[in-house]
């Protein structure tokens, strides 16, 4: 019937909007950043400084921003992975049903806290604490940002890791237990290794979440565009740069295009992370 067909088409259309939107975003970013390739040229992006407003010479090097994002992300992941993976193992394998009923909603609430609220918490509570702890002159640095982001990554990593652990077939565990292994031995030697691809994918999606986070890092990392790997130094991340500067630039200026170049870099990074995570999940048959 033609009516069915029309409706079917409409539904396919609505379902594929997200594909269309992703494609359009790629196109749009490319179009806006486009002429940066010719003037002043891609070489400019490899400059060692990011000084977009200057009377001397404007410089649009992405290296300080990349290093800023990398440091903050690394700190966040080092903090969040052990906590989140252990939490996932506990919730999936050890926790009693009532415990699970309490733990899971709270982890989900953590995911729902707006990042500006967490940023404010970081500014008022965490930054002074870090300042005292390390005897620094200011608590606005990569470490504070990294810890805040770790909090934000917890729900992503826990939820997906837990799914992965849950989807390990019962026959594996039963076989292990039947061979005389204890509960704990079964978890560490059988269940977790079997779920490892899923856990790795969870971590990668966590990285994607962290690297794209903006508001909280803008508020607590100090935003100095330095090339550094020191966690106690202030850093400027790619996302914070776009957020802080996008409002100001005249459309079409070199600075505007440079910000879109950051956007493209960011999109490519998160896109690759997602692809790798998907591939890992598919390859090891963890797909639902």
């Amino acid at each position, binding site marked *: 019937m033609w009516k069915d067909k029309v*409706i079917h088409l409409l539904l396919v259309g609505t379902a594929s909007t997200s594909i269309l939107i992703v494609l359009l975003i790629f196109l749009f970013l490319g179009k806006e950043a486009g002429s940066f390739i010719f003037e002043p040229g891609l070489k400019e992006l490899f400059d060692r400084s990011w000084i977009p*407003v200057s009377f001397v010479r404007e410089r649009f090097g992405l290296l300080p921003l990349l290093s800023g994002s990398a440091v903050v992300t690394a700190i966040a992941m080092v903090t969040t992975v052990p906590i989140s993976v252990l939490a996932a193992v506990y919730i999936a394998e050890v926790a009693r049903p009532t415990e699970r009923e309490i733990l899971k909603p709270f982890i989900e609430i953590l995911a729902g806290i707006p990042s500006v609220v967490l940023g404010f918490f970081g500014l008022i509570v965490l930054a*002074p604490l870090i300042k005292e702890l390390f005897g620094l002159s200011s608590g606005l640095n990569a470490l504070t940002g990294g810890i805040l982001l770790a909090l934000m990554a917890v729900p992503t990593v826990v939820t997906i890791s837990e799914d992965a652990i849950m989807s390990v077939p019962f026959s594996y565990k039963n076989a292990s237990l039947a061979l005389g292994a204890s509960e704990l031995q079964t978890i560490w030697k059988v269940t977790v290794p079997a779920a490892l691809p899923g856990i790795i994918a969870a971590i990668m999606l966590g990285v994607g979440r962290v690297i794209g986070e903006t508001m909280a890092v803008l508020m607590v990392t100090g935003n*100095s565009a330095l090339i550094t790997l020191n966690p106690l130094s*202030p850093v400027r991340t790619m996302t914070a740069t776009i957020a802080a500067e996008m409002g100001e630039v005249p459309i079409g200026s070199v600075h505007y295009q440079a910000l879109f170049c950051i956007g493209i870099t960011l999109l490519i990074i998160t896109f690759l992370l997602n692809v790798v995570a998907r591939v890992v999940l598919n390859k090891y048959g963890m797909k639902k």
Partner: protein
Amino acid sequence: MNNIRKSLTVLALACALFILLGCERHSTDEAATEKGVGYITVKGSDTMVHLLSTWAEDFMRSHPQAEVSITGGGSGTGIAALINGTTDLCATSRPMMEKETQLAAAKGVQPREFIVGRDGIAIIVNPQNPVTGLTMLQLKKIFTGAVTNWQEVGGQDRPILVFSRESSSGTYVFFQEHVLAKADYTQRARLLPGTSAVVQGVAADSGAIGYVGLGFAEHGEGIKTVLVAVDDEGRPVAPSEESVRSGDYPIARPLYLYTKGAPTGLVKEFLDFAMGVAGQKIVKETGYVPM
């Protein structure tokens, strides 16, 4: 099954309708046909937001059929909006740059400049810091990173922690032009989104230094303003209304409103109000210096 399909279709159509409605834009051009009636937008300097909103409130009280919408974001943001045609007036704490004027001309916009008041930029430090005065040269050295310890400018042996506004701020550009003599800020400067963040940062650390508008320095808590001298021979001057107006205080600047072409209709009425007696009284009340 059929029912589910039907409701899904309705839902999809509703979504489409919402998207279409979202595209409709508030037109600002056709306003200002009748006297005192219409809708105008003012966008720009964060420094001036408080002043602008007080103006807008008073203006709307005397013009009940007019609506004035104020947005901050920074002087650069305001100028960009004026050039891109998304605002009627832009408020800035620095004059338009050569580049911006060219860009505006390229887009067929001819901005008109109006000075509506003056503002001094105060240098703030932590109250624990014994330094009471600095020269312009010392300030330049501190903010460009040539001097990194308070000892070098007559203070204690303590590293200097430089706080600055983000580069979208008019204060950032003004300070760079007039105090840094167009040199770049030190790469170690922490760029903070907003004046209150700078005040908070300086209040939190004994080695910190930052710059804020005069109005903020007077009301800020946990901070101390530093006297500024033009050079070694010059007399250190405290930032105040008198010293800004007389020109004794070296870091002062005009505050601007820009219009697209010659002001007409409601835009003109708003400008006249801002530059008139009532408007200038508000300038004084909000911590700036009237003309």
